[in-house]
């Protein structure tokens, strides 16, 4: 197999890697906020349930969660899981990352001084205005470095979907390596992951710089 063909196949797999990465982010970032609100909900049963959910998501391997999301519908209800793989992956990854993001958001929101809420109340801001105008913008700045960490981990975690035999870059690399008895595809895949994360870190740094105008 020529280097060119190998590269093309890996690039196709990389497209799938990117798809999983971006869709998981798009779902899990806002979902994390919903989970946060559930976590601090005053209705006790809700906050307990959400706490248990976060605990399970953080306490078990993502690979195991993916296997459960994919195979459970078949084993439990005999559902035809033919075209369901990507959906299962997105559900599994999004729910897992939302749990982590929720805790990051919580740490950020809890670090906003009480005085900010009091000043806002004295000025007559409504609860919604206080949250969206005063609290949230400050939280974004505080949590950005932690979110960057998670996002970089997500890039690498996309390789876990190979356990469902989903064809993305990591799976392709493994296939080629086995068929051609060469370590080169692993090396190329590694370079791709690295460049991707280098870009992710660069973009996140750009966001951080844009929020540098205040302290």
């Amino acid at each position, binding site marked *: 197999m020529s280097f060119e063909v190998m590269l093309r196949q890996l690039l196709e797999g990389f497209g799938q890697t990117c798809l999983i990465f971006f869709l998981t982010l798009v779902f899990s970032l806002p979902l994390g906020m919903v989970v946060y609100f559930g976590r601090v909900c005053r209705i006790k049963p809700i906050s307990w349930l959400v706490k248990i959910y976060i605990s399970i998501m953080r306490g078990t391997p993502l690979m195991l969660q993916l296997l459960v999301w994919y195979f459970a519908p078949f084993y439990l209800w005999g559902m035809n899981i033919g075209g369901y793989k990507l959906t299962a992956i997105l559900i599994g990854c999004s729910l897992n990352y939302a749990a982590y993001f929720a805790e990051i958001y919580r740490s950020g929101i809890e670090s906003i001084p009480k*005085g900010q809420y009091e000043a806002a109340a004295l000025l007559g801001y409504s609860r919604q205005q206080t949250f969206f105008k005063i609290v949230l913008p400050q939280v974004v700045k505080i949590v950005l470095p932690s979110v960057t960490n998670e996002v970089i981990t997500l890039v690498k975690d996309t390789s876990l979907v190979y356990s469902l035999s989903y064809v993305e870059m990591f799976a392709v690399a493994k296939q080629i390596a086995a068929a051609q008895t060469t370590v080169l595809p692993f090396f190329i895949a590694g370079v791709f992951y690295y460049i991707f994360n280098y870009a992710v870190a660069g973009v996140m740094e750009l966001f951080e710089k844009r929020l540098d105008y205040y302290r």
Partner: protein
Amino acid sequence: MKLLEMNHIKKAFNGVQVIKDISLSVEKGEILAIIGPSGSGKSTLLRCATMLETIDDGEIQYLGRRAAWVEGGKPVFPKKEERKEIQSYFGLVFQNFNLFPHFSVMKNITDAPLKVQRRGKEEVFEEARRLLKKMGLEDKENAYPYQLSGGQQQRVSIARALMMHPNILFFDEPTSALDPELTGEILKVIKDLAAEHMTMVIVTHEMSFARKVADHIIFMDKGVIAEEGTPEDVFGSKNERIREFLGKLTSER
């Protein structure tokens, strides 16, 4: 006309009685200074008056309208709309400013008038510039709070409160986070407001300032009003606790 009336206020934290049956009232144009040792309940009283804290007993009224009371042993605030209106009667200047760090000076002082009071943009900005000029901050409107000195930040926070056109302005130890030089800056601003007959309630440790600017002084100790009256009354009081407190102050200086 009485702007503020607090009747028989009681407040406890975890079983510790911080305020024990305090009553006071503030007339329009009056300047009330509340002095006393740390832990005597001054700040708590102010926080109750500004509805940041609930009360355990008693009643608070602004312009004759009930702002906080107790029903069946439970603290009660008025319904949302009524509460909002009553809240607009007063402003509060905090000890540690509590400016919004992600807003410029201009946005800090204009955002609430625009977004809460829904006043016209032109009018609000004109008033903001006038006020900043008065405070000696005309070149700071685009600065962010972290770029300002403590004294400048406190002046912005006073401007922020004034922009809301409160009937009565509370100060919670406005100079306690500032060095003596910056303290002077803030006291001058408050003096200027006094000259304009702004109604103010000031919790302070600046005794000579309280003496000079206040119409009425309340000396608090252990959750009660130990003495009150004109500055002459209080500073000339024979009350031993006050003599002791003021004596320590003068001997330290």
